[in-house]
């Protein structure tokens, strides 16, 4: 009996691990690994920043955007600046 239970648990663990490794996302922040990309985080570059918004215009969390805390802060600051200048929407579907 005990053996069976152990087998069950291990099968679940294997599944869990495969789920975790499933995404092809890299762990490194891409702005840390490629320093030149940092300069493209700019409130004037709205086409680039648009990639960090949801369809509704919300800012993507770092857990999805993959940016480290420092660069996520840069991104959100620049998005907020772009919103003031009407380059990006505050909410709703634009463009």
């Amino acid at each position, binding site marked *: 009996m005990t053996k069976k239970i152990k087998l069950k648990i291990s099968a679940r663990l294997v599944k869990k691990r495969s789920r975790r490794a499933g995404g*092809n*996302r890299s762990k490194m922040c891409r702005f840390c690994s490629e320093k030149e990309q940092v*300069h*493209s985080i*700019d*409130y*004037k*570059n*709205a*086409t*680039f*920043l*648009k*990639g*960090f918004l*949801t*369809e*509704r215009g*919300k800012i*993507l*969390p770092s857990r*999805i*955007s*993959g940016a480290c805390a420092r660069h996520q802060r840069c991104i959100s600051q620049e998005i907020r*600046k772009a*919103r*003031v*200048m*009407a*380059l*990006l*929407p*505050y909410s*709703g*579907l*634009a*463009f």
Partner: protein
Amino acid sequence: MMQKYEALLLATPEITGDEAKDLEMQLDKVIKAGAGSTISFERWGKYKLAYDINKSEYGVYYLMRFEAPKRTTLINDMKTYMSVKLNHIIMRDMISCIDPKAPLTYQRPRSLEEAPAREEGFSRDARSGASYFSAADRNELDEE
């Protein structure tokens, strides 16, 4: 010590060429009065705004770059000047410091004049931004 600044101005879509020249002259005067100097004044073109401002859907952007001494009152003077005297032309303005390490080149979204008949949805360029997020992820976030 001199510091480089840039001002992004959003003007009304009805702005004429003469008005734009006048605008440049006036701002240049303000900057010179504050012991600074203008570096460049560029017209981005006409854009469709992300949301309506003063009941207009469109706007014209101008980017002005200038140099001014550090710890100056010039920035405040410019902001006051724009909000009081150029109130009828300028809808929004943003003045920010330029990072001396960053390159002076920049990218901007395409204006309506450059791409006339391009009415697209909220689509993402494959090269720009975080295009590798799945649509399901985004929907999930919106539902939260």
